[in-house]
């Protein structure tokens, strides 16, 4: 008698990573000149019920790929998903829960922009099941908001935070620094205003001129130079540390235990279903890891959903791209990662990275011990230089 051993496929994944859900709502009141996300101006309004139904149909096409896997976090992003009514939000979340095993204590975040804040609506969002808000404040200063092309002013920014905190206890604010004409003092003043509200999470982004945006084509005048913007970053980091915030990712800071669990799953190379126009997903199987992408234009997406095939592409990550893609995420975390995670999430042995790791160590960009690999402070500052070491030749 011989026995047949049920061993996992060689080079494959022994266990599948945690799963999240990303839902994209592509509309905004106005497109901001720095934004490179898939967003479209609402103009004459949009059919929110139709879109919510499309999202749910979209999800159903993905269910066979994640059968039985619990969903740890949900993020409804955009665009400006806070444009949805509370009723539409309720339908959406109920629909998601009906189709997926969403953990009872799942983090469910909604991205919201000032200018769309009404107290009743946000109470409705909470009742629908949203338990975390991420607000795109960017700045509290009217002149800076105008230069960024935001629809809200300083007063609306403050009101948005107040409304948010009256209904939610887990709130993130997005701030930008190195804005046109911004001084170090102004950058810190924005930060102090944000901290005065008792938020749990803050993202501080260096304004980046992304390709294919209006700002890339016509850069705004009087941007702070490299020295000043680096000073701003250091001052911001220092003040946040003093305020009891932990710096856990390149641009992300939180009160103890209040990391964005959803984003953390991206950065830990976890899986995520991506539904909605232009949404990206990453789904692991025992023998491969795939990236999915939905049609970008809302009209094309709705048509594709109606035809039962909303994914524009579904492609396997090439084996020799995996190390870089893993590192690109994990090394953003200031605390680094447990070394075993590499094999667990990519199915590849860590020794593949040994030459690059040694090089990075020699350059003082990472440090490692028996269980962990983490970027040094130098490595965090020069993350791009560090990451290029892991690009395939």
């Amino acid at each position, binding site marked *: 008698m011989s026995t047949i051993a049920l061993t996992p496929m060689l080079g494959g994944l022994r266990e599948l990573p945690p799963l999240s859900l*990303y839902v994209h709502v592509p509309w905004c009141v106005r497109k901001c000149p720095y934004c490179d996300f898939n967003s479209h101006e609402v103009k004459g309004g949009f059919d929110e019920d139709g879109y919510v139904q499309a999202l749910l149909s979209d999800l159903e096409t993905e269910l066979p790929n994640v059968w039985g896997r619990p969903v740890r976090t949900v993020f409804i992003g955009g665009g400006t998903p806070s444009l949805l009514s509370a009723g539409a939000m309720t339908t959406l979340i109920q629909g998601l829960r009906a189709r997926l095993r969403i953990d009872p204590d799942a983090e469910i975040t909604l991205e919201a922009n000032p200018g769309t804040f009404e107290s009743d609506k946000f109470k409705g969002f909470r009742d629908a099941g949203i338990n975390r808000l991420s607000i795109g404040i960017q700045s509290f200063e009217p002149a800076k908001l105008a230069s960024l092309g935001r629809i809200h002013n300083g007063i609306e920014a403050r009101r948005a935070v107040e409304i948010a905190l009256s209904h939610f206890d887990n709130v993130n604010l997005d701030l930008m620094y190195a804005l046109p004409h911004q001084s170090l003092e102004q950058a810190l003043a924005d930060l102090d205003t944000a901290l005065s509200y008792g938020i749990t999470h803050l993202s501080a982004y260096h304004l980046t001129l992304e390709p294919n945006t209006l700002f890339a084509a016509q850069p705004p005048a009087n941007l702070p130079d490299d020295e000043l913007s680096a000073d701003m*970053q250091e001052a911001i980091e220092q003040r946040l540390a003093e305020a009891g915030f932990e710096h856990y990712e*390149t*641009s992300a800071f939180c009160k103890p235990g209040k990391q964005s669990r959803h984003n953390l799953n*991206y*950065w830990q190379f976890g899986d995520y279903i991506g539904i909605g126009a232009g949404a990206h*997903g990453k789904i692991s199987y025992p023998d491969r890891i795939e990236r999915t992408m939905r049609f970008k234009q809302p009209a094309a997406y709705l048509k594709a959903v109606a035809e039962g095939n909303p994914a524009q592409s579904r492609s396997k990550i090439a084996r020799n791209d995996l190390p870089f893609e893993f590192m*690109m995420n994990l090394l953003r975390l200031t605390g680094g990662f447990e070394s075993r995670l590499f094999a667990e999430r990519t199915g590849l042995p860590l020794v593949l990275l040994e030459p690059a790791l040694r090089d990075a160590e020699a350059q003082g960009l990472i440090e490692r011990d028996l269980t962990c690999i983490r970027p040094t402070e*130098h490595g965090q500052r020069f993350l791009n230089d560090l990451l*290029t070491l892991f690009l395939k030749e």
Partner: protein
Amino acid sequence: MNHIRNFSIIAHIDHGKSTLADRFIQFCGGLELREMSAQVLDSMDIEKERGITIKAQTAALTYKARDGQVYNLNLIDTPGHVDFSYEVSRSLSACEGALLVVDASQGVEAQTVANCYTAIDLGVEVVPVLNKIDLPAAEPERVAQEIEDIIGIEATDAVRASAKSGIGIEDILETVITKIPPPKGNPDGPLKALIVDSWFDNYVGVVMLVRVIDGSLKPKDKIKFMATSAEHLCEQVGVFTPKSVQRQSLNAGEVGFVIAGIKELKSAKVGDTITLATKPADEPLPGFKEVQSQVFAGLYPVESHDYENLRDALEKLQLNDAALKYEPEVSQALGFGFRCGFLGLLHLEIVQERLEREFDMDLITTAPTVVYEVLMKDGVLLEVENPSKLPDLSKIDEIREPIITSTILVPQEFVGAVMTLCNQKRGVQRNMQYMGRQVMLTYELPMNEVVMDFFDKLKSTSRGYASLDYEFKEFQAADLVKLDILVNSEKVDALSLIVHRQTSVYRGRALASKMRELIPRQMFDIAVQAAIGSQIIARETIKALRKNVLAKCYGGDITRKKKLLEKQKAGKKRMKQVGNVEIPQTAFLAILQVGDK
């Protein structure tokens, strides 16, 4: 033979030589209209783009003259730049006459004068032509006077022409027939054919351009090279119209090509005499001087694994450019590469450009230098063509640098500025002559000053009017020192220079500061120092970047962010890693961007 005329055209760059050649070919029906492209004789892309002629080309033309007789005209096109002056003299020695083409709006230029003298020395009849007479700024009378003043040939009845608009083309051809003598030679004597040029063709092997002096040559003849005694079987003879057209034979007085199944260019040396193995001539024709490299530079692949490709590319280039010399060299900073010898800066630039364009090479070129004679204390005389190879100063008795005699023709209003420039470059004035509107300055100049940026400076101080010709004079002892550049305390041998002690401190400072501009900021501070021996004379710091990190990266960003980083990496790849510092290609030529005090 009375109906043959062999002639070339002497002209300064831009004075319209190639256009005039086009007109002749068109007028005599050498090419159908549909086959004409502008400047047909300039066949290399670089020649067309830069508007210069590098290699000599020929066209055999059939012209029915006004006297009703048909003449065979052989036009031998010549390069116009000083770097290629040796090609000019070769072309001229195949001719009985030369058209001196002068732009009627510009006047005579130094290079033209030099080539004219070469022609006169070789006994070639010089026939002046005033071109571009249809330009509003044309002053044919004044320029004719200038030709008489400066060159000393009769020019009052010089043909007025415009190659561009086709004015006076037939008049020029008539003058060629009346003024230029037919070739002399013995059609029945033993074969003597001078190799004027040779190049490698991928299909037929070596092609030789020859001028038959005596006798005749036809396919199946067994030919002999008089310098090497090598024998080959003649396979084809013919002429260029400028298309290649096969002929039954090439006879005394004619210019044409010979193909003899030769695989290596060095077997068909330019200047050698071809004769028949069965009925050899007694003695060879005088031939030409061997070409000497004047300027040296290191060529290195940016990526070290391209070394073999670079060697192949140089080998292939040399097939058509015998003046290019190269030998392997190792630099601590740049790895394996080649030290190459060139005729001049333009030649260097052209070789570099052809390597990059035709062979897709990514190159680092080190600053051009000249060859120095170094007399050691033990009496040994060394030739140093790479500054980093200069022996320790304590063992050197003296360093001698090459001095050239340069002739500069410049309009009067710029004389002062040009003289100041020559003085800055350690020039010694030998002569100054007023010739009509222009002044001819003769200076002895250290060649190492000239190879840097003299030509560009000369052009800019004279608003483009000054022209330069030069020839090597002698080696002269000078107070020279080696200037080293250190990057993060490491000496970068490829950046070493030999400079005069007087200017060394200034140059060192200027170079260090230029390097600071050219080396991009990196993750750490970079110190750039200039040193003479162990003494540091300048120091600059390239401050470290503060950060290099992408602010955002979420689930949907992976592909886009990855592209950004791939771009960063590709940018780094084009730089050379010296120690832990990435140095861009341009920094190795930084010295060329350093001004004078």
